[in-house]
């Protein structure tokens, strides 16, 4: 590569000044970057409004690409499905037979559940779905796991609402714009979801690892009862995520927990559902009336 044009400014005042200014501006960039980093490390939600504006502005284009992405997905799935058809068909028939008998059992359980909940007065109405939206973008080159969905405050979405797909939990709403929202995926390292094992309710926490897997830690330490292949669901503790939302399958057992693979891979989820916070925080108490003098 040839050297760039001579950078020595010589005796020209103007050249000296412009060279000086450009170098100063470079240093200023570094300083501003440092200041911004410090601010956003102290308060990660700062600049949320800027991000929301940017996400809102690019939302229409991102929506179009997301449709293309989903189409591409279905084409790829269609082609691979064609080659795997025979073996899959046999396998599915076998699974269907098992599932039919399980369904009867589940019906019985649901009926009993309803009866017990009725006894406790816990039955909730199904007004939990706030909005359905498409996933429009994500942060594929960062170690943080965020995604953007194409619905925002205009559709009644608020900060903290859980987001799920048809197959399982995806994450929760972190920042809300007018027609887009930023979602913290459950695979992010900042995401901590209270979970239980689906079959018997062994309680624990699932924390994201940033690489598409979850680290499950048990609440009760002792002998680790987890087994490979166990399904974990959200437990509803803490009152944010609805209990019983499927989350992950354990793939590797560790001494004090396990590594789990997320069931609802956001890569395959074209549409997601935003739910109400399961147990909204109680309204603040009314301000005490001023005492009469």
């Amino acid at each position, binding site marked *: 590569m040839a050297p760039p044009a001579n950078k020595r400014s010589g005796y020209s005042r103007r050249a000296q000044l412009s060279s000086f200014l450009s170098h100063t501006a470079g240093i200023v960039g570094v300083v501003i970057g440092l200041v911004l980093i410090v601010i956003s490390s102290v308060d990660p939600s700062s600049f949320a409004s800027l991000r929301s504006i940017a*996400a809102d502005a690019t939302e229409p284009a991102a929506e179009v690409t997301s449709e293309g992405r989903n189409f591409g997905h279905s084409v790829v799935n269609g082609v691979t499905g064609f080659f795997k058809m025979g073996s899959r068909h046999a396998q599915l028939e076998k699974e269907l037979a098992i599932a039919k008998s399980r369904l009867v059992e589940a019906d019985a359980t649901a009926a009993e559940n309803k009866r017990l909940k009725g006894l406790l007065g816990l039955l909730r109405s199904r007004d939990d779905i706030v909005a359905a939206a498409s996933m429009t*973008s994500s942060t*594929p080159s960062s170690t943080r796991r965020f995604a953007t969905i194409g619905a925002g405050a205009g559709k009644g979405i608020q900060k903290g609402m859980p987001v799920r797909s048809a197959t399982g939990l995806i994450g929760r709403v972190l920042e809300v714009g007018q027609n887009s929202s930023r979602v913290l995926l459950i695979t992010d390292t900042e995401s901590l979801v209270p979970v239980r094992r689906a079959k018997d309710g062994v309680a624990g926490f699932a924390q994201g690892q940033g690489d598409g897997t979850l680290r499950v830690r048990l609440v009760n330490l002792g002998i680790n009862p987890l087994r490979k292949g166990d399904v974990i669901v959200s437990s509803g503790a803490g009152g944010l995520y609805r209990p019983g939302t499927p989350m992950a399958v354990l793939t590797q057992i560790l001494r004090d927990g396990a590594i789990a693979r997320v069931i609802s891979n956001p890569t395959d989820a074209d549409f997601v559902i935003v739910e109400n916070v399961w147990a909204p925080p109680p309204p603040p108490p009314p301000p005490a009336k001023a005492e009469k003098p």
Partner: protein
Amino acid sequence: MLEGPTTRRDDGPRPRINRAPSPIIARVVPWLSIVLGSMIPGWFVIASAPMLPPFGFLLYLAWRQLRPGLLPLWAGLPLGLVDDLFSGQPFGAAVLLWSLAAIAIDLLEERFPWRNFAMEWLVATSLIILYVLASYLLTNLSAINAPIHVVVPQLVITIFAYPLIGHLVARLDRLRLTAVRVLR
């Protein structure tokens, strides 16, 4: 900025009689390509792990190496701000790292005015490695630590993606200097 390539025959598209590059396109293309490189890749995949290279930074690096002096030293400030809006990194990470990269390249240019392919490749690869690791560390400042093995695949992909990005930038540079304006 505009005169250099058009006067050399082997560099850029062949000049045509009565035509000259449009100064607007010549100035806008580098900035626009970097902004789009920061913005668009996130639309195409909902990733569950860091798997795509930081395209914005790669384009920025490639433009700096292909055309030293085309982007001013302070270009990392506005371009980094745009990248921060979409990247998911803590706000300001790209501003800081892009500005530092520009200063590093500038110093290397002064120290080694004549550089060959190996030298450029070595500089770019080391800057990419430093950038990915520094992004990882800056993210850990504001969030719970992700395990370091998370960024290893991305690091490898990024190093291998850089020559392709360099090729793309060379194409864009030809486009930038294509003579479209009719001289009268």
